[in-house]
C-alpha cells in the first residue's frame, strides 16, 4: 500500500514516497522516510511490507557503503541496480523479501531503475509502485517530456501528490520528495 513514484529530468532524478508506516489497519507513523540515500549520490525508495522494506533497504545501503570502503570507488547507478537485483533473485526462492524499489542516481546521465519484489528490473524514465501508482502512470505520461527543468519536475510531483490525495481511497496526505543531481541529494518540502 506504499505509494512510490519517480521520474528523470534534464540533469536530475526525482523520487517520492508517501510517509505512512502501515501495520494492519493502523498508521503507526506519519513521518516515515522510505527513501534511503546510498553513497550520498543515489536514492533507494522502498515500498511494500513494513519490516521487509526497512530491513532490505538498510541491508543494501550498508552493502553499497561496504563496497566503497573496500574499493574507494562509488558504484554507478546501473551497477547498484544490478547488484540489488541479483540479491533479490538469489533470495527469491529461499528467503524472499516483499519490497518494491525505485533506484535513482546520476552518473553522466540521470538514471531511474524500476525493481520489484520478484526481481524484475528495467531502466525507465518514469515509474510508480503501489496501488496508488496506477493513478500516476497516466498522469506522468501526460505531463512528462524529455529534458524537464527542476521547476517543471516539482510541478509534476505536486500534481502526482494531489492526485493521490484526491483519488486514492487510503488517506496518504504526506509525502517525502527527494531530488538527486550532480550537487547531491536535496529534500523538497511538499506539505
Amino acid at each position, binding site marked *: 500500500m506504499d505509494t512510490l513514484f519517480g521520474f528523470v529530468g534534464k540533469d536530475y532524478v526525482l523520487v517520492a514516497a508517501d510517509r505512512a*508506516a502501515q*501495520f*494492519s*489497519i*493502523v498508521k*503507526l*507513523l506519519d*513521518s*516515515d522516510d522510505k527513501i534511503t540515500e546510498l553513497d550520498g549520490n543515489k536514492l533507494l525508495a522502498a515500498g511494500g*511490507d*513494513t*519490516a*521487509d522494506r*526497512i*530491513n532490505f533497504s538498510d541491508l543494501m545501503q550498508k552493502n553499497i557503503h561496504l563496497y566503497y570502503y573496500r574499493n574507494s570507488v562509488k558504484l554507478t547507478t546501473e551497477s547498484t541496480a544490478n547488484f540489488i537485483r541479483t540479491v533479490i533473485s538469489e533470495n*527469491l*526462492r529461499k528467503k*524472499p*523479501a*516483499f519490497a518494491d524499489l525505485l533506484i535513482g542516481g546520476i552518473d553522466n546521465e540521470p538514471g531511474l531503475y524500476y525493481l520489484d*519484489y*520478484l526481481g524484475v528490473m528495467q531502466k525507465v524514465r518514469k515509474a510508480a509502485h503501489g496501488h496508488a501508482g496506477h493513478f500516476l502512470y497516466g498522469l506522468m505520461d501526460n505531463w512528462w517530456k524529455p529534458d524537464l527543468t527542476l521547476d517543471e519536475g516539482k510541478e509534476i510531483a505536486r500534481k502526482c501528490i494531489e492526485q493521490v490525495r484526491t483519488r486514492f*481511497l487510503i488517506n496518504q496526505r504526506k509525502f517525502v520528495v527527494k531530488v538527486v543531481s550532480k550537487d547531491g541529494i536535496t529534500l523538497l518540502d511538499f506539505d
Partner: protein
Amino acid sequence: MADLSFLDSSDFALPSYFSPKEDLNPDFSETLSFPTPQDLVAKGTAEAKKLHQFAKGTTTLGFVFQGGIIIAVDARATMGSFIGSNKVKKVIEINDYLLGTMAGGAADCFYWETNLARVCRMYELKNGERISVGGAAKILCDMVGQYRGYGLSMGTMIAGWDHKGPGLYMVDDDGIRLKGDLFSVGSGSVYAYGVLDSHYRFDMSLDEAVQLGRRAIYHAGHRDAMSGGVVRVYHVHQNGWTNVIVAEDINLIHDIHEEEKGMKNLDDQVTFKH
C-alpha cells in the same frame, strides 16, 4: 479480533464473498512453475498460525512528551474466550533505564525481553557504557527476525533514556522496528489511539500525561473484550523509570467516568417503549 488477512492480498478492495481464483483470470502463481514469494511466506505463516493461535489480545501504549516517556498497559490475559488473569504484569523491567511492554504471546515477550536484558548487560560489561535504546531495540528486532514465519507473536515497545534523550521504539515479530513519539500495540490499540490522538500534546505536564495514559487504557479496556483488569502506568525519565500507577482497576475508573458525565442511571434499551 476481526480477520484482517484480506489486507494482505493484492485485490483487497473486493468484497469478501468474491473469490478471484474462480471468477477472474487464474491466479498469477498458477501460470508460474515456481511459487511466488507471497506463496512461500503465506504457506509458512499459515502453518505457523495453525500451530499457535495467538492474537495480540491486550492494549499497551507509550508516548514521548516534554517530561520523558509514559508507558501504560492493561493487565488481562486471555486464552480464547477464557480470561486467565486480570492482573498480569505487562511491563518488563529490562534494566534500570529500559522498559519493555508485552503484547502477543506472553512467553515469547517475556523470554525475548529477558534475553535482551542479558545481552544489554553483556554490552555494558564489554564496552563500559550503557547500550542506547535504539541499539537495544535493534538487537531485539534481529533476534526475533531470525524466527520470522515460525509463529512467534510479540509486539513490544522498548522505552528508555540514553545520551540522546528519551527513545521509544516499536518492535514486532514481523521484524518491524520503528522509532516514534506515540505508539499503541494490541487488539485494543485502535480504541486507545482515538483517545490519545485527541488529547496528546508534547508540552503536557507529567500529571496530564499520566492521566492521558490511564484514560486511554481505560477506554480500550472498556471496549475491547481482550483488554481490561487494571491499569499500570510507568514514567521513564532521565534517572531511570518510576512505576507511577501500580494497579488501578478499570471498572472503578469506569464508575468514576460515568459519575462525571452524569450517566449513572442511564441504561441501554433494546426495544423502544411506545
